[in-house]
């Protein structure tokens, strides 16, 4: 029995592992399972002794540490087992690689060497904690906290619904653990058996059912109504936990998912779900930009934290963007954007660059430097807003005339020192014949679009120890917009052109007239380059092709070598015409051949934000009464639960009375009488004999009196007589007595007896008076 609880804990955690299966590929679980089994064995064996239990976690840690070296760093360890400095360094390196893999890859992440180590370490820590909580501290319920943490991971990363199978398995494991604990407690202390009557099983089951029903109902009602009632508590709250960008309000940082994470998710998704539709007065609308990433750390582009304060509230006229001191002469474009109500909430508005004014419900702020418009409160779904933007299409001549950038603040030329020098060389090589910043930019874009690069949504990951940027640029040349945009922005900086990476959507597809539709497949990243006197302009290094590129991407005319205005946008040579060059042979383990996230079905996507519907203004106003009505209905149900349960109890008792064994029948009738009296607020004296009780309860009505008396005598005979009387007429007597008692009570007492039966809670049962002091 001592080994049962550790084993149950192990099973519980093992069953929780599928929760992560949608995020990882390959045999990521093997080391974790081995380690968990090992530490469980340590716990179970130690508990067979009767020694102090405090060292158990330490011993488990020791066992895990001993096992990790041969599993992950056998080559560097002494005899493959004994840790050495080399092996520890190797472990640290592997761990770092794993973290990088997880950081830079969209799920599902391949289980390369580092990832199983991380998973193994995490699960061992979970296992040791769970073992301590469930077995040593005897609080198995707290293991639920660990399971919730595991549950949160897919929610955070994907922001989507859970796999129900995995969820059910985890729940079953947890329930199994609780059941095992109850069983062990029962063996140790004895179970509480309240009353061994034949109807007690029904009654006990009923009571248990009622308790469960109340708990479940309360949980569901809270889950439904709390997010609606508390604006900051949204069902997608976990999204905000993902690392990434920061918004500062006062001294408070608010995190928002890293733009690349949602980008990868959108592009990886096989659905063509509509994200937004818009009307534009322009024939050739610009991209819809959400983020501008201006910091490069050598691997990833990230965003300088933006500030939310009253000074930069985005209402009415927006400040001019960087590089402009007075409004541009160009025409303005009006774009009316409707976010789809099924799409994830946005806290950064997708809008054309540059916007001169925006009308949007709610509190929104603008970052003057990047011209991003964002909010700190939780935005609504199905947002509608209108943007006035300047249709700013500089000509190639204008750009060519732009001198070296002088007016731009902020480190838009900063690059980390440890960049691969090969990239620098490449930039120099590409821009060798270009003198002006504009020519250098065009040359860099042409380098990407000249056909040598292959567009692939799941590029092979760079081998260990190789700079992914250099790998993309120089070695395999396979990637998608994230790589193209990021690489071009880096090269532009090396060529002394200030740059940043914009993330958002392409203009999408024209439906009819001025209506455009943007789907998840239109998610995009592109570089923005800065030119003196012109400001930030968009470049497009990503192949624009529907079968081998970002289908809806367009190449701005100015970026392709200064053609005269009025010429049609140039379609790039179609790199997809030729067979998409397979990437260089890579290690089989890293082969991402299958398309990611096949399990994702449109229904999953659509159902995700359903739960929180209700409080937004437009498309689903007709459903806004749902939570309120649900709350009212649930409240009524909750209020009537006691009455229903009481009725059910009474029905079970009375319906079983005719034909019941005399003893059981008399007891049942007497209990029902007792409960009726308790419901009415009466006192039930345990020191009183049945007939004395009947005397006390009986009012003036002779029929009630006689019925009570017969019930008392039946109960008395059932309790004390060697051969009890037969139980005929008990049901009639009970009904008569009940009716008599009810009619003798006041109206208020009757109402209370029906709605809030005091006999229902187990603590309401009469108890013997305390021993005389």
């Amino acid at each position, binding site marked *: 029995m001592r080994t049962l609880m550790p084993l149950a804990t192990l099973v519980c955690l093992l069953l929780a592992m599928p929760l992560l299966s949608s995020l990882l590929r390959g045999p990521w679980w093997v080391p974790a399972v081995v380690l968990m089994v090992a530490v469980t064995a340590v716990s179970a064996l130690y508990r067979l002794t009767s020694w102090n239990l405090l060292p158990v976690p330490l011993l488990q840690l020791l066992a895990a540490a001993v096992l990790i070296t041969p599993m992950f760093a056998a080559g560097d360890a002494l005899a493959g087992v004994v840790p050495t400095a080399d092996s520890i360094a190797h472990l640290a390196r592997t761990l770092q690689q794993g973290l990088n893999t997880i950081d830079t890859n969209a799920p599902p992440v391949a289980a390369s060497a580092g990832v199983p180590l991380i998973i193994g370490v995490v699960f061992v820590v979970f296992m040791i904690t769970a073992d301590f909580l469930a077995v040593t501290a005897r609080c198995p319920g707290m293991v639920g906290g660990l399971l919730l943490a595991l549950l949160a991971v897919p929610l955070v990363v994907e922001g989507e619904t859970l796999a129900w199978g995995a969820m059910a398995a985890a729940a079953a494991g947890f329930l199994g653990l609780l059941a095992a604990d109850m069983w062990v407690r029962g063996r140790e202390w004895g179970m509480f058996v309240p009353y061994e009557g034949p109807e007690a099983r029904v009654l006990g089951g009923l009571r248990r059912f009622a308790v469960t029903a109340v708990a479940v109902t309360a949980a569901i009602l809270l889950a439904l109504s709390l997010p609606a009632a508390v604006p900051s508590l949204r069902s997608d709250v976990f999204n905000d936990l993902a690392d990434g960008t920061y918004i500062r309000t006062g001294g408070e940082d608010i995190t928002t998912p890293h733009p690349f994470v949602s980008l990868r998710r959108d592009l990886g998704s096989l659905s063509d779900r509509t994200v937004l539709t818009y009307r534009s007065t322009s024939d050739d609308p610009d991209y819809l930009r959400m983020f501008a990433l201006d910091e490069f750390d050598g691997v990833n582009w990230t965003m300088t934290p933006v500030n939310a304060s009253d000074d930069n509230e985005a209402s009415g006229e927006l400040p001019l963007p960087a590089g402009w001191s007075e409004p541009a002469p160009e025409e303005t474009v009006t774009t009316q954007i409707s976010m789809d109500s099924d799409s994830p909430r946005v806290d950064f508005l997708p809008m054309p660059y540059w916007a001169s004014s925006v009308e949007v419900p709610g509190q929104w702020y603008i970052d003057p430097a990047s011209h991003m418009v964002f909010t700190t409160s939780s935005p609504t779904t199905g947002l509608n807003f209108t943007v006035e933007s300047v249709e700013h299409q500089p000509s190639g001549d204008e750009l060519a005339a732009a001198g070296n950038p002088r007016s731009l603040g902020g480190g838009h030329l900063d690059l980390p020192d440890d960049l691969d020098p090969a990239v620098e060389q490449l930039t120099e090589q590409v821009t060798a014949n270009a003198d002006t910043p504009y020519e250098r930019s065009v040359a860099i874009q042409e380098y990407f679009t000249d056909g040598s690069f292959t567009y692939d949504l799941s590029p092979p990951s760079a081998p260990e120890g190789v700079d992914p940027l250099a790998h993309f640029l120089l070695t395999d040349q396979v990637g998608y917009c994230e790589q193209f945009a990021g690489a071009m922005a880096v090269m532009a900086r090396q060529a002394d052109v200030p740059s940043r990476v914009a993330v958002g959507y392409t203009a999408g597809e024209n439906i009819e007239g001025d209506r455009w539709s943007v789907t998840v497949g239109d998610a995009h990243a592109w570089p923005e380059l800065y030119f003196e006197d012109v400001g930030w302009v968009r470049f497009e290094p990503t192949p624009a092709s529907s079968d081998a590129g970002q289908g809806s991407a367009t190449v701005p005319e100015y970026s392709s070598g200064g053609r005269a205005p009025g010429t049609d946008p140039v379609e790039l040579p179609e790199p997809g015409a030729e067979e998409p060059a397979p990437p260089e042979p890579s290690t089989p383990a890293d082969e991402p051949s299958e398309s990611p996230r096949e399990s994702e079905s449109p229904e999953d996507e659509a159902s995700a934000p359903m739960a929180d519907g209700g409080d937004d203004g437009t498309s689903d106003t007709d459903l806004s009464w749902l939570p309120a009505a649900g709350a009212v209905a649930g409240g009524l149900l909750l209020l009537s639960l006691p009455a229903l349960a009481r009725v059910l109890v009474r029905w079970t008792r009375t319906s079983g009375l005719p034909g019941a064994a005399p003893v059981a029948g008399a007891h049942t009738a007497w209990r029902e009488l007792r409960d009726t009296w308790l419901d009415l607020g009466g006192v039930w004296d345990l020191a009183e*004999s049945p*007939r004395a009780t009947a005397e006390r309860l009986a009012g003036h009505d002779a029929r009630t009196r006689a019925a009570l008396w017969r019930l008392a*005598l039946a109960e008395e005979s059932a309790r004390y007589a060697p051969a009890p009387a037969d139980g005929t007429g008990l049901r009639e007597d009970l009904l008569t007595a009940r009716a008599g008692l009810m009619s003798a009570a006041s109206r208020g007492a009757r109402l209370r007896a029906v709605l809030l039966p005091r006999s229902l809670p187990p603590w309401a049962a009469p108890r*013997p008076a305390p021993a*005389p002091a």
Partner: protein
Amino acid sequence: MSLHTHHGGRGGAGGAHDGVSEVVAVADRITTAIETVIEGKPEVLRIALTVLLAEGHLLIEDVPGVGKTMLAKALGRAVDCSVQRVQFTPDLLPSDITGVSVFHQDRHEFEFNPGPVFANIVLGDEINRASPKTQAALLECMEERQVSVDGQTRALERPFMVVATQNPADMEGTYALPEAQRDRFMARVSVGYPSPQSELDMIDSHGSRSPLDSLAAVTNAERVRDLADQVRSVHVAPGMRRYVVDLVNSTRTSPELRLGASPRATLHLVRAARAYAALDGRHYVVPDDVQALAVPVLAHRLLPAPEAQMERLTAEQIVAKLVARLPVPGPN
């Protein structure tokens, strides 16, 4: 003490014990007979009958002149059996109760002259006036149901019931019975003053001649013996036994009592409860029987603690409190 005597009903249903219904019938007759003499005291009468059927002894304690002796006499009359009356006085000797062996000159042998204790019902009037030695002699007979004189043991005939009356101990010229001897009595009752109406009726009925003279026997000793045997077979459920033990035990642990009830009290209580149940026409004991008998059977054996005495709590009140606090056996 309010007792509800509901005969019949579902309580006696099933196999209406012949014995039990006979008990009821005989008891009814005795009650009716005695009530022609003692009016308005059904509870006292009931206890007296209970003690008779349970083969215990009864102590009637009250102020003079309320009919203690009359009750005992009436009981003896109603049951056609031998009744002896002993008037206890300070100079009464033990042999005045048990009897003496007298030497017959002509036959040259000792002949035993049985004392008044050789009777079915012995009425010990004002027992607390006798010397302790004499009291002790009577109480020995009560317990042993036999008399030992001159090395010879003579059994007393069943039924054997001592009805002793005594004045409250604070009256003059009395020797209060010690606790050990009070313990031998199954029950103690007080007759109490009659109600005004009963007293008026009494003037009429006692005006010309004693009603006792016209009291005819309604049953006989043999019958009573049979009934007592029937009473022994009344069922006491395990829960009820436990209840009695708990009740007696609570007198031992109660801080309000200096002296609790003895194990003999437990036996007396169970026996009395059996008889009480039979008198109600039941063949099983219910808590109401025990509750009704708790004060008569237990109170006279208890000594209140000094604190309780200072609060003027009597043993009767304390027993009633204990009864009111003890849960009756439940449905298990």
